[in-house]
């Protein structure tokens, strides 16, 4: 049995009277890539907001159930900022903060209290290298991050998510705003990062999950339909008929 990094137990989320997640339970293992697929409105992004507890900032959101990270209930953690730093989030549209490339990546370490120029320099270079962006921007680290192209900005946000050395990296449809070539490059990056962290990959593209994920979860309408090895999900052996139909494009 593999180690569980995250354990989700009977998680329910509602916004006002609208149920977004209707009681789901599953584990995320250490150093795996877990793909989460499913059509829009099935609660995938909401799930990520629960993990880093930004759901608490949304008015009208109610959460029940538990999420354990390394066996600890995250809702009982006193230092929510530390929790958020241990989870990197990459959002669908790249959000370059209106700062230089350098400051974008150095943002989180600075928040966490790193002051020494040497340490910051090292961190910025390491993260940009990991995100496969270093060679393209190393000569212009002081230009505005928002000047980069869409694909570069997305890699910048990945570098930024890596800068606080997360244990879990969550990517929410990272490829919808970027071209196929960049997407492939980032996918290569993710495969390499797998050895260092746990990756949750939320995606609309079922083929992306098929290429990258060790296991795949299929969410539909706020419910977890099925979670299994990617090979199983993408074969006739999928336990639920709906899963088979979704991954084969019959509905969705």
């Amino acid at each position: 049995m593999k180690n569980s990094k995250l354990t989700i137990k009977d998680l329910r989320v509602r916004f006002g009277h609208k149920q977004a997640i209707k009681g789901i339970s599953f584990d995320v293992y250490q150093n795996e890539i877990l793909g989460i697929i499913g059509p829009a409105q099935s609660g995938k992004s909401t799930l990520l907001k629960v993990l880093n507890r930004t759901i608490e900032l949304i008015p009208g959101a109610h959460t029940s159930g538990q999420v354990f990270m390394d066996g600890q209930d995250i809702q009982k953690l006193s230092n929510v900022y530390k929790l958020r730093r241990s989870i990197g989030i990459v959002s669908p549209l790249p959000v370059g903060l209106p700062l230089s490339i350098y400051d974008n990546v150095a943002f989180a370490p600075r928040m966490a209290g790193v002051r020494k120029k040497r340490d910051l320099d090292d961190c910025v270079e390491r993260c940009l290298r990991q995100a496969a962006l270093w060679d393209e921007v190393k000569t212009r680290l002081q230009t505005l991050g928002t000047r980069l192209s869409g694909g570069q900005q997305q890699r910048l946000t990945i570098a930024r998510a890596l800068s606080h050395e997360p244990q879990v990296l969550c990517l929410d449809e990272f490829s919808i705003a970027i071209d196929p070539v960049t997407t492939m490059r980032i996918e290569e990056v993710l495969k390499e990062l797998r050895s260092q962290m746990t990756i949750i990959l939320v995606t609309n593209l079922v083929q992306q999950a098929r290429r990258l994920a060790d296991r795949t979860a299929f969410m539909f309408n706020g419910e977890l339909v099925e979670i299994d090895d990617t090979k199983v999900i993408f074969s006739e052996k999928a336990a639920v008929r709906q899963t088979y139909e979704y991954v084969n494009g019959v509905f969705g």
Partner: protein
Amino acid sequence: MKGRTRFESIKEWLIERIIWICGVSSILFVFAIFFFVFREGSAFLFRGFKPVEFFTSIEWYPTSQSHVRYGALALILGTFSVTTLAMLIAIPFGLGAAIYISEFCSARVRETVKIIIELLAAIPSVVWGFIGLTIMNSLIIRLFHAPIGLTMLNGGIILALMSVPIVVSIGEDALKAVPDSYREAAIAMGCTRWQLVYRVLLPAARNGLLAAVLLGIGRGIGETMAVLMATGHSIRIPTSLLDPVRTLTATIAAELGEAAVHSDHYQVLFIIGILLFMITFIINLTADLIVKGIRKQ
């Protein structure tokens, strides 16, 4: 256009003209005001006006029998000192309030506070002057044991209270204009609310906040009635907060009624008007350019 009657097309034409006039008139009025103020002061400006004396002397004796002098230095310094003091109070309070309203308070508190601040902006300036003349005056005398409470401090505080609503409402707009995705991204990286404000929001809203400050300053420099009533109105270079001062605007308001039309004194007052016009014009223009800079981003 076949089905259109003659009456309808005339009506259409008329409405277009009226709207055009409404639009153009605002430009026309500004130019007309500038032209009028300039014309009233221009004869003296090119004849007997001594710019060196005007800008460097503090001797303002427009009605002297023996030796008329028009040194406006004390007035200029009066305007700037009162405005500076007002801004030292209004900017921290105003921006602080803008940050609180935009980022820290609940929706219900926000609506209440905004209504109250709009109410604050709607108080007529003569009422502010009245507050300065009565409440603030006795308060300052009691607190500082000053001989008189109508001082630079009094005027500065009154002016600050008048400028705060402008700084707050424009500053809040600027902060609200920062995309929520910035907030989400920064919070997801584990920064606290205060780190979010000073690391992300203030830099991102920098231009809008600067515009808010400049418009607040413009308000301060242009204000007349309240400062006339609250500052004591005596011509001197202020050396302490408890000195009475006199401002450019208050001088015009107080003396224009006494000066004979088209006399030198009358014209000098209009030259002061031109000076004020130019100062506020430059400030507004700067604010405008800065705001345009935001949109481009």
